[in-house]
């Protein structure tokens, strides 16, 4: 039992460290920087593209991707090592994860050799950004409930309908899309998968304002949008199988919950005064701190166990869902508790007067998203119960019924 890298892993880690030290600034310990979702800041996109390009030319973009896609052809453990090291740096995050983590692997997995050569390298280099056009008003957790229509017209398909919650659609160049090509079939069987340029005529992108006040996601309307059949991925009617590839990658792509994490709440408890002295001396506070520390460490060493399996060439299973399930709620709890420690002043969100530059207040507003996006808490519990514990699937009323005969709700 040890935490040592193999000689090859150590050599790779050393190269990563060297690259990061030369190209990025370290995150100040305990600082909010790097946690904050700074996508809306002026110039954020340009900085992110620049960083991605540098990462790519140094060979650290697409570490596990085959070299023919422009990747490094490395191992999953190398990717983990890179992520570990990068986490200590304040580098732009949040623009490329969906494209590189989910869209391009799907395009490469199902597309032609020419498509791989055309789309993978610019995505890796950060010059083209992709978004995921899956969720709809009628299809979120129940993605196969989606209604956007795809109708054949000669060599093209005509798309009509609406997507929702599409992160980054407003700055994306391309998107992957699942649509219904045959409403007369049961829901999972009548779907077909495409990719398209977001500049295609008839695509209308409208930002949605989140509870945080920012607009990272959008509604995307399709009115008679023409997509050539050559941009179909997988067979007609096999869109669900293709979408599953994307979703399988989703759980790996969704990273750690952003902070405040244990360090921030611990620092706060040491510094802030309650009515009876420093918060850290208060028994109720200590009890909470200990619980979060135990969870934080538990997640960390669960990751180390996963790394051990990767290091041996094994594939981690659905137990990877634990990280997001535990991390998202922990974040929400820490944010709210941190505010409680600030008492009546805790509602102030002006960073200039608040501990950790109002990170706790911001997290109160962005943490709910993490419990929904990329598989809600409930869906993740289902996945664990069914695929890890072997309990039966939920009873379904919609399986073998033609899609256009299914009951619908009013929302």
């Amino acid at each position, binding site marked *: 039992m040890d935490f040592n890298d193999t000689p090859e892993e150590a050599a790779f880690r050393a190269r990563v460290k060297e690259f990061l030290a030369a190209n990025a600034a370290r995150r100040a310990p305990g600082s909010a920087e790097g946690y904050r979702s700074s996508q809306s800041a002026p110039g954020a996109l340009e900085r992110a593209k620049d960083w991605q390009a540098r990462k790519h030319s140094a060979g650290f973009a697409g570490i596990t991707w085959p070299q023919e896609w422009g990747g490094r052809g490395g191992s999953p453990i190398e990717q983990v090592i890179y992520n570990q090291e990068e986490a*200590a740096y304040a580098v732009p995050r949040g623009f490329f994860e969906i494209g590189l983590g989910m869209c391009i692997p799907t395009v490469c997995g199902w597309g032609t050799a020419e498509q791989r050569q055309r789309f993978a390298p610019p995505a890796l280099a950060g010059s083209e950004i992709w978004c995921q056009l899956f969720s709809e008003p009628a299809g979120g957790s129940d993605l196969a409930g989606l209604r956007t229509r795809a109708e054949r017209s000669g060599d093209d398909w005509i798309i009509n309908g609406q997507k929702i919650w599409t992160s980054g659609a407003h700055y994306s160049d391309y998107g992957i899309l699942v649509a219904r090509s045959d409403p007369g079939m049961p829901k999972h069987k009548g779907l077909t998968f495409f990719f398209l340029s977001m500049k295609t005529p008839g695509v209308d992108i409208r930002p949605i304002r989140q509870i945080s006040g920012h607009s990272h996601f959008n509604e995307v309307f399709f009115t008679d949008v023409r997509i050539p059949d050559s941009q179909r991925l997988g067979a007609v009617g096999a869109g669900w199988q293709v979408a599953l590839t994307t979703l399988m990658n989703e759980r790996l792509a969704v990273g750690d919950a952003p902070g405040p994490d244990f360090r921030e709440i611990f620092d706060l408890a040491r510094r802030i005064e309650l009515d009876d002295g420093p918060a850290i001396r208060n028994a109720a506070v200590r009890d909470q701190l200990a619980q979060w520390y135990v969870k934080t460490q*538990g997640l960390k060493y669960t990751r180390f166990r996963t790394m051990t399996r990767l*290091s041996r060439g094994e594939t981690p299973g659905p137990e990877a869902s634990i990280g997001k399930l535990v991390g998202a709620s922990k974040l929400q709890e820490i944010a709210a508790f941190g505010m409680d420690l600030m008492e009546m002043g805790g509602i102030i969100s002006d960073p200039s007067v608040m501990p950790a530059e109002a990170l706790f207040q911001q997290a109160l507003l962005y943490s709910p998203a993490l419990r929904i996006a990329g598989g809600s808490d409930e869906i993740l519990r289902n996945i664990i119960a069914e695929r890890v514990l072997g309990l039966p699937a939920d009873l379904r009323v919609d399986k073998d019924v033609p899609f256009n005969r299914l009951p619908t709700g009013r929302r």
Partner: protein
Amino acid sequence: MNFDFSDELKQLRDEARRFLAERNALAAARRVLESDGGHDAALWREIGEMGWIGAAIPEAFGGAGLGPLGLCVLAEELGAALAPVPFSSSAYLASEAILLAGSAAQKERYLPKLASGAIIGTLALAEGPGALTPARLGAAVAGDRLTGTKQPVPDGAAADIAVVAARGTDRRLALFLVDLAAAGVARERIATIDPSRGHARLIFSGAAAEPLGPAGGGERLLERLFDRAAVLFAFEQLGGARAALDMAKAYALERYAFGRPIGSFQAIKHKLADVYVAGELARSNAYYGAWALSQEAPELPLAAATARVAASDAFYLAAKENIQTHGGMGYTWAFDCHLYYRRAKLLALALGSTRIWKDRLVARLETQHDGALDGATGIAP
């Protein structure tokens, strides 16, 4: 990264699992529970012959010399099987105390017999309800004679020797070795919530007591002993949590209500998913504790407290939700659910409650350098 047990230790774990299943240790736990027998002597003898009790005792003292990691894998299996044997008392408490602080003569006198199971050792600490503090300690040694009452003492009726916490002549807490067969020791079984593990009240009235460890070092010694034992108990608790979840899962697949297996109801699925997640986090924390223990790492105090809190909570959660998953059947004497439930609470208090351990955890964090806080993004172990 090799954050796992060696193949040799995994093999030992598998052998232990097979052996305990063959002997049906769970049925033995029930027999002890119903007979009030204290422990299963035949099972204990076999465990001794296989060298498990002395797994962490050096070969020079008759042990197997596998180090603490050997005890960890065995503890998990004994915990899963609810084995009704004085393993924790003898191996994690008495033997470890003597290994930590015993003189050469004490080690030679006791360790070989403890390793083989020829004698049983225990730790006599608690003095009834309420937290134990040095100031409140009633047991005292004057000269070399011990007086006072200890309860509950795990395996106190069966034990041959006890490591006893008492005030020394200097009024400070110290540990003493006491031969329980000698004059001045009276003992009686005491009823507890988990009769599958025997407990006793020990009344000392001038019993001969020899000091264990240097004078004045009692509190520090006890703390070190507890940190080591916390990791070992955590593995026992992990095993228990695993077995209780397995039992709940099996029942959820077999039991039908409203025309379907109860395991297809989300209230049951999500409950058991939460039990699984708590168990996995506890396992990861226990592994880290095992690493720190095996390396004698400076991180041990913090790692031990973390492992202890996670494992106590995870086993108790698994045990209580196992009863819930079984419905009325879970509340019957005939089903084994209550065995896990009893054991979970017993182990959660055995080294002090999670309240105390959480407080200790935070205190240790306060004295750590900042590296200990790297948490989720940390690279360093």
